[in-house]
């Protein structure tokens, strides 16, 4: 099933780290997913997160405020 992934963050180093991790997981496992970076503050606030970066999978906020490990991201995407 196609997954829509969004990474919310205003561009700090942690947000970039999260993007790298998620990108690697997608390409290494050849997952059917699209990745979008949401950097606009108003858009970010619509998800009601208070700590960035946040990982949103199919409109569900799955991780916030920290950079997850590859295994964690893979588990979330395979759910």
């Amino acid at each position, binding site marked *: 099933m196609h997954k829509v992934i969004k990474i919310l963050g205003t561009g700090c180093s942690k*947000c970039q780290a999260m993007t790298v991790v998620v990108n690697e997981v997608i390409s290494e496992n050849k997952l059917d997913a699209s990745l979008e970076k949401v950097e606009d*503050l*108003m858009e970010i*606030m619509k998800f009601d997160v*208070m*700590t*960035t970066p946040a990982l949103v999978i199919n409109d569900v906020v799955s991780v916030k405020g920290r950079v997850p490990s590859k295994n964690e991201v893979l588990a979330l995407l395979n759910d």
Partner: protein
Amino acid sequence: MFDWIQHIADWFVYELLGLRVGQHLAEALNFFIYDTTKILLLLFVVVFFMGIVNSYFPIDKVKNYLSRNKLYGLEYLIASLFGVVTPFCSCSSVPLFIGFVRGGIPLGVTFAFLITSPLVNEVAIGLFVGLFGLKTTIIYVISGVLLGSVSGVILQKLKLEVYLTPWVKEVLANAQRDQEVFQAENQTFKKRIPIIWAEVVKILKGVLPYVLVGIAIGGLMHGYIPEGFFEKYMDKDNLFAVPIATILAVPMYSNASGILPVVQVLVAKGIPLGTAIAFMMAVVGLSLPEAMLLKKVMSLKLIAIFFGVVTLCIILSGYLFNSLL
């Protein structure tokens, strides 16, 4: 308690490298090895402990609690205390601010949280214990928490809502108190440990370069600047020392890990502790980069008032420290 680290440092410098006791280079190196080992150990312990606390009190739970309960003035102190256990990342300060406003939490209470969070956190506490000992650390933590609370109360009294940017005012108008009790992830302690552990490793890796550079600079100053060097310029009776040190530090930014080792050497060489801590608080707590971030939610006037009140409170606590210690 840390004698064994001193033995290791002594052995390494005087036995293994065969440097002479009293040599500048030897003293500086000895200090460097002793300090880094001790500080990294303490940092590890404090960061891990705070990681556990934070795992049980995540920021959403804190916000929900503050939003849901009537606390009769205690909310400033509680927000400030929560600021201590919540790890602070300056890039999260704006979403945090909006989240609090949206939950109907008064502006002053939000400020109390935002002031204490960078000032007193796991990294600052770990370093403080290592460099200044437990007693000074406790005084620092208490004054940091009080500083956040008092500044929050003052800022609330000033009725600053009109100086928010238009879109934040809109958020404020639609603010709603959270009704439901926050459902924390119900994980066992065992399941939490790997996540906490990964965070600890990340935090330590992140601060390591700062600590090493800070201590290296500290070590050099320690070995080469004579005792009491600064006393001539900044002694306790100089009334202007605290405000000058504070105001100089406001635009500067460094996190606690970079600035504290240097502050310790300044103190060892004769700068009064209160003056040094006021300097440090202003460097860590207020900065130009932070002001730039806050511009998204506050007018320049509000930022100026916010910085002004906090600066004043830092100066006052600097005087207080100098008279107490």
